[in-house]
């Protein structure tokens, strides 16, 4: 390592790179082009198509009506109570899941950021839920955990009541009584490990000397947490929250599996899927898609800013 840094090029070399001839510039671009063209074709063109179709009347059941529709699909999105509910459910689900898993993730990351017996094993146990295929996790929670007759939750209640000699333990029909909560708990179970991992990495990047200095100065753990840990962690909390939000907004598997969108749990991705396949209304599905994109751009703007500030910090080293 020391030898490689010793023969590192002088800084004078860098401006040289910026003054490239057009030919040199194109040679540099060649390795980038396949990936760039591929990505543009497969991710940008579909969005353009979505935007165009959203202004069209296009229903597979009524091919005779295909044509320009103006804003009517958008009017439908914002006047149909079911669709408005889907927008609301998406917001509620995303905010709840991200906030709860963020808080849990921070607490668990703080607990894991200590030296104790079996730390590696507990860390591995914490990661595991994130490595369960989402549709498998949703099926597992729906049938093996929430099921009112043989699910684990009611089973544990029966068992605890049995210890105290009672044989009429309350049995809850979890999904029917708490449809949205059931989905959210499943998602929180899967996303808390994600938050924990990012926040743990953030905690471990805290400069140790500063913490030691603060400890010598007699700062108590709470003061150190609020004055040093939290400010340092702000960036990581934002990053974890925004990335989590971007993924959770797109939740389809859990809604499809646990409730199939019934009991007021249909979020936008599920609704788009339904509009596309049950109603075969391509125009309306596109308008819904555009709404999701607009919402995501809002989150993404903050996320890009955040990631770029982390990158800038990285370059500054």
């Amino acid at each position: 390592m020391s030898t490689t840094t010793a023969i590192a090029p002088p800084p004078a070399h860098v401006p040289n790179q910026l003054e490239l001839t057009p030919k040199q510039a194109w040679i540099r671009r060649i390795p980038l082009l396949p990936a760039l063209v591929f990505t543009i074709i497969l991710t940008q063109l579909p969005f353009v198509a979505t935007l165009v179709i959203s202004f069209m009347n296009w229903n597979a059941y009524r091919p005779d009506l295909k044509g320009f529709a103006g804003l009517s699909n958008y009017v439908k999105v914002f006047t149909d109570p079911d669709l408005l509910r889907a927008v609301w459910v998406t917001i509620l689900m995303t905010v709840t899941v991200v906030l709860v898993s963020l808080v849990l993730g921070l607490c668990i990351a703080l607990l894991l950021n200590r030296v104790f017996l079996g730390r590696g094993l507990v860390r591995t146990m914490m990661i595991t839920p994130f490595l369960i295929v989402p549709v498998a996790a949703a099926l597992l929670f729906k049938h093996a955990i929430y099921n009112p007759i043989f699910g684990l939750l009611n089973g544990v209640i029966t068992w605890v009541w049995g210890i105290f000699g009672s044989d009429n333990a309350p049995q809850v029909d979890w999904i029917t009584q708490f449809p949205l909560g059931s989905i959210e708990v499943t998602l929180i179970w899967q996303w808390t490990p994600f938050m924990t991992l990012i926040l743990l990495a953030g905690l471990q990047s805290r400069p140790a000397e500063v913490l030691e200095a603060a400890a010598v100065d007699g700062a108590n753990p709470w003061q150190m947490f609020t004055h040093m840990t939290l400010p340092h962690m702000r960036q990581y909390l934002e990053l974890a929250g925004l990335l989590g939000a971007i993924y959770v907004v797109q939740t389809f598997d859990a809604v499809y599996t646990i409730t199939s969108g019934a009991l007021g749990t249909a979020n936008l991705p599920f609704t788009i899927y339904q509009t596309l396949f049950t109603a075969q209304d391509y125009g309306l599905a596109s308008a819904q898609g555009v709404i999701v994109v607009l919402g995501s751009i809002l989150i993404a703007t903050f996320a890009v800013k955040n990631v770029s500030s982390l990158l800038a910090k990285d370059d500054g080293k």
Partner: protein
Amino acid sequence: MTTTAPAGTMTATRPAPSKPASKNQLGKSALTVLTWLIGLLFITPVLYMVLTSFHSEIDAASNPPDIFAPLTLDGYRAFFGGESGANPWPSLINSAWASVGSTILVIVLAIPAAYALSVKPVRKWTDVMFFFLTTKMLPAVAGLMPIYLIAAGIGLLDNIWFLMIIYTAMNLPIAIWMLRSFLADVPPALFEAASIDGANLVQTLRRIIMPIISPGIAATALICFIFAWNELLFAKVLTGVVAQTAPVYLTGFVTSQGLFLAQLCAATTVVCLPVLIAGFAAQDKLVQGLSLGAVK
């Protein structure tokens, strides 16, 4: 954790504040126990899944749960085509194809791209990086419909190759961000030496870049594999019978009735196994991958 170390040595050398120290020790043990309990709580559903997959259907459906019931492979036998005649193998093979195939494509496209974004950067390389990032931030569901219409139009519905292409597009931005962050860690002198020798691009990539960042490539590949294997929405929309993937096969259990819990748990255990293996293998690089290389 560095702050707790001096406190520990202090109790050993200085006996004076013994009471607060022992209280401190007790608090630490309590925190350790709490950490363990939380870890166990999070892994319980997974352990319960694996345990139930080895129980008979009758034992699996008992309430309260009989965790010491005799073990059997009946659940796995039923899943791999017992009496129902359903055969999960084609869907597992399709999933393997789509995820391995797309991962290879992703890596082949991403290595040169990452090179052009870090080692010999193109002009405005940061703009290109953020372009890739934003494609990941726009919800895939919005592009679902035109992709479905295109697939239907060119007769590629229910075709595993088309799904492979979609998964490649889905994972390419992640791979480029990850690989660039690995390349950025390599001392530039290593690349300088290679270019002085007059190696061309392909030689440089194969002989210099790939060996240096092979752990990074492996981690990137594992994460792309996981995302492709997990994907349900596009697979459900774009495939039907022939190209059905394992997650789509699993959705057959959504409306199951009767005694099927052991079989379900066997099915989910089998489908999760490749991801669990890939995830534990990539454990150390998981954070870097999930945060698109922003956190190391």
